[in-house]
Structures are given as C-alpha cells and as structure tokens.
C-alpha cells in the first residue's frame, strides 16, 4: 500500500502552500458551529466530531466523525452519522458552507453510526460509495442493526433511517474527481471490519481513516486483530499532512496518532496469546486480558470484553 501511495511530491507542495495561506481551523459561522460542531481542518475539508457515547435518544446516533470535502464542482460526504435525523443536520451544515451539488456519499465501513444518515442525502441523488464487501455485509446485518438501533435511539431519532447500500463498489484503488481536487479511495484488508476503506484528499494530503483509527473512544474489533495490527504497522510508515479518525479528535498527526490504538490491540493480542498458551478459556480471558488499558479509553466497559472475545476466537487457531 505504501508503494502505491497516491500523493505526489507536487501535491504535497501545493497542499503546503494552500495551508500556509489559510489558518488550520478556519472561522465557521457561530450558528453552524452550534448546530453541528463543524471545523474546517484544511482548505475545503470539514469535520464534525461525534460524541464518545453509545446510541441514545439524546445523541440521535451522533457518535462518530463525519466529514465533507468541497471541490470546484461538487461535494463528497464521508460518513453520515447514526440516524437520518443526525444526517439531516449534517446536510444542513454542508448547505450552510456551500451550495455545490453533493455528488458522493462515501461510507468508510458498514457500521450504523457511519451509514444510518445516508437517507438524509437521497434528494441529492449522489453516488453512494463503499468497499465492495460493504453491501453484502450490511445487507446481512440490516435487520439486526435496525432492530437494535430502533431500541437504542427511540422512535423520534430512528425516524427516516433506511439501509442505503453503495451504488459504486470499490475494489482496490479508485479516484473520485470533485473538480480541481480528487479523492483517492483504497479498500483495505480485514482489520476493524472486512469492509474498511480509507480516503485521501490529494489537495490537502488529508487521510481519512474511518474506524481504522480510534482515539479516546476504545477501538471496536469486528474483523481481525492480526489484520488490524498489520495494517496499522503499514499505515504508521505512511505520510500524510493529517489523519482524521472515525472516533476521536477532528485531526491528528502520523505516526503518533496510531500509537495508542496499536498499544491497545497489541496488549490484547499478547495477553490472549499468553492465556491460550496456559490452557485458559475464553471466559478466563474476558476477565483479565487487556484490563491494564482500562483507564486509557472511554467506553472501555461497553466494548472491551467483546474485543477480547473476538481476539481469542481468532488467535486460538494460530
């Protein structure tokens, strides 16, 4: 992946000049900021930071980062939050910044907090874009995701949620042209899920990692711990002006941004491997593995045991 990196030296120089000409976090009208808490982290690159929470009627599924990139000819949205209501607020915020057509709605992976706002963009008739495995995986989980989110969000926030699958399935690398700037999409091997896709805005060298990167919010493992650690190792050797996590601050820097997550996953893997070697069971592991990380993360109690369970089931076959 590193050798296929789409960023040319010329792009980087252009981006550096563009950045030098504008402050990192540009002024955003107060009304908009109140409405959706959006910052322009690089010229034409906007990020809304989700809350470190699980779904609730109060947060309306606003619990992941959602981004949009404004080009000369149109807008690309990257992840749409966890409800049509929250997605609608995101759309209103985009409309407060630009009237350019919303051409693409990109989902970094299948999880509800990143795709359930897709319906808010139907009137824009965008191309919905995702990893080629996203459609299969989301479709097979749709009933379950809808039932659980209806229960957790409550009727008001659940209103309008639809499963909208990608109309453009990406396998490998693909470029979307927004006019004078392009987004490079790269599907990744099984890591956080089996349908993670990263996006690079070449104009500003901003790398959107989706849930391949968690910060503050404990990572959630729904793919392969070995695959995720291997991918993080590759990503840590990559260069980018900034990265945007799926959960965490609006912008972070490589390679430091990845270190906490690498430590968390490596701790689980090491602990679980040791317990397996000692003949311990899955139940034993869920009580001890990785608990040294407890104070380092938010939502640890909600997700950690599940992460250990998935890791154990994977690593016991080594």
């Amino acid at each position: 992946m590193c050798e296929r990196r789409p960023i040319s030296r010329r792009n980087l120089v252009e981006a550096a000049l563009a950045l030098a000409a504008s402050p990192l976090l540009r002024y955003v009208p107060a009304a908009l900021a109140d409405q959706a808490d959006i910052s322009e982290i690089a010229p034409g690159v906007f990020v809304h930071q989700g809350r470190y929470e699980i779904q609730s009627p109060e947060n309306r599924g606003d619990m992941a980062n959602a981004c949009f990139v404004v080009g000369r000819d149109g807008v690309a949205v990257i992840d749409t939050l966890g409800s049509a209501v929250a997605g609608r607020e995101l759309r209103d915020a985009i409309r407060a910044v630009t009237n350019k057509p919303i051409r693409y709605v990109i989902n970094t992976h299948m999880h509800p907090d990143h795709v359930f706002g897709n319906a808010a963009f139907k009137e824009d008739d965008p191309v919905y874009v995702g990893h080629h495995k996203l459609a299969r995986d989301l479709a097979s989980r749709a009933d379950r995701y809808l039932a659980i989110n209806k229960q957790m969000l409550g009727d008001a926030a659940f209103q309008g949620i639809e499963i909208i699958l990608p109309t453009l399935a990406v396998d490998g690398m693909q470029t979307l042209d927004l006019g004078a700037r392009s987004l490079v999409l790269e599907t990744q091997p099984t890591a956080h899920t089996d349908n993670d896709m990263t996006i690079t805005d070449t104009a500003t060298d901003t790398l959107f990692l989706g849930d391949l990167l968690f910060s503050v919010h404990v990572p959630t493992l729904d793919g392969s711990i070995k695959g995720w650690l291997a991918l993080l190792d590759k990503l840590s050797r990559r260069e980018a002006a900034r990265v945007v996590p799926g959960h965490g601050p609006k912008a972070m820097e490589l390679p430091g941004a990845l270190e906490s997550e690498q430590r968390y996953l490596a701790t689980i893997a090491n602990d679980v491997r040791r317990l397996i070697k000692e003949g311990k069971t899955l139940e034993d592991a869920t009580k001890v593995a990785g608990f040294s990380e407890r104070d380092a993360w938010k939502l640890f109690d909600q997700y950690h045991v599940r992460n250990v369970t998935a890791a154990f089931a994977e690593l016991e076959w080594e």
Partner: protein
Amino acid sequence: MGKEDSSMFPSLVYRTGFAAIACAAHILLAPAAKAEQDVWPALRQQTFGDRQIQAEDGAVILEIPGTAEDASLVPLTVRVPPAVTQKLKSLTLFIDKNPDPLVASLSFGPAAGSGGERSFSTRVRIDMFSHVRAVLETEDGILHMATKFVAAAGGCGAMQAKDPDAETVDLGKMIVKTFPPALSTSPIWSSLVMIKHPNQNGMQLNINTADIIPARFVKEMTVKRGGELVFQMQSTFSISTNPNFRFTFGRGADNSLDVVVKDTDGAVFTAQSEPSGS
C-alpha cells in the same frame, strides 16, 4: 433407556431438520413479535412430552454471562457437581428465542465417566434476549433443568460472520487435546475439541445473486475413548462459528480420544487427540 427415550432421539433429529428449513420464515417475524412469545411450553412438550422436569434442583448448573457482549460467541458451561454420583444419560441445551431453539443434544456413553465433577462447555449464538436452558437426564431417568436469562448486547450480528471470505479456509481442520486431572487419583479427565467450520445458518442473502446462502453446519459429533462412547451429539447453527467444546470424560486404560464430526453437507471430519497434556 426407557420407552420415552427411544422415541426422543429420532424426533429431535427430525425436528432439527425441519427447523432449519423453517428458518427463512422465522426471520421474517419482527423481532418484537418473536420476543413476546413464550416458546418453552411447546418446546418442552415437543422434546420431552409429559415427563416431569425438576427445575433448579442443583443437579445441573448452567454458567453463561447475563449480558452477551458478543452475541455471536457466548461462552456456555454446564456443570454437574460431584454430589451427583449417577451416570449421565443425556444433556439437551436450548436457547428459546433462537431461530432453531435446540442448540445441542448429547447422549452419553459408558466412557462419559463418573466420580467427580463433570462438565460440558461450548460457545453459542444468541439471536436476541432469551432464556437459555440445560436439561440433564441422569441414569435414573429423572430430568433436571437449569435456566438462565441472557440479554444480547447491541451492535453485533449474532448470526453473521465477521469475515465470510475467510471462513471456509481450512474447513474441517480439527484440534483435539486431552488433559489429565490435577489430582492423579481423580477418574475424570478433560478434553478440548476445536473444529474449523463456518457453522452457517442459511439465513443470509448472497447480495450478488439474491440467493439464500445455504445452511452448512456441524450436525453430529461422536467422541470415543479407546472405542467406547463418551457421547454422541446432535447440534445446530446455534453453536458459534468454529465450534469449540471442552468436556470431561472417564479415565480409561488409554485416554486418547477419537472424534468424528459430520456436517449438513455430508462431509465427515475425523481427528485423534494429541498426546495428553500437549
């Protein structure tokens, strides 16, 4: 086996097959509607007829987390405390609200052992919050039941594979290990059996062809110690992907195990235990 027992086994096999076919209809039920039905009275009648069941009498203990953090992989352990000295005839596990409530049905043989704590552990899928039941039949023909209620935590599809493309890699690979007791005087050994198998439920759509992906799961496992039966198990897709079992067996002259697994595609997988303690 009593008169009732001889008829129980084939009916379970039949019912399992039927339920697998009926699943497509089950999944169309709104989860809320399914949640409100108490299926146990019918299930109980279907499986055990009018036989009495002694609930929570201490002969069988069921251990399962009250909240399933990962609904696709919930550890479940059944223990028969040492105070129960009889031989065991059968063990049946249910998850009331699963598409097929029968998880597994074990018929124990002469090598199942006695004279210490006996146990059976596996990992199950729990489709939604549900009662989970272990019904143990002791040698005297009495049925004993332990029940726990489990809430499945949100966000995880219990029936979905994390990485469906990786699931058929090494299909049928097995690991069988035996462990001598901590006290060498104990007549009860333990074993671990792992099977690489997707244990698919047959309820998922192939998005490219709009076909239902056919069910394929482990339906039978036979464990023998030196030619003598430890148990024979009938099972369903309520057992998690890559079925995993830990269980006790009685000490023999030779404590190596032979395991034969059959799946719904008719594939047969066999394995022998590695030298004990390895």
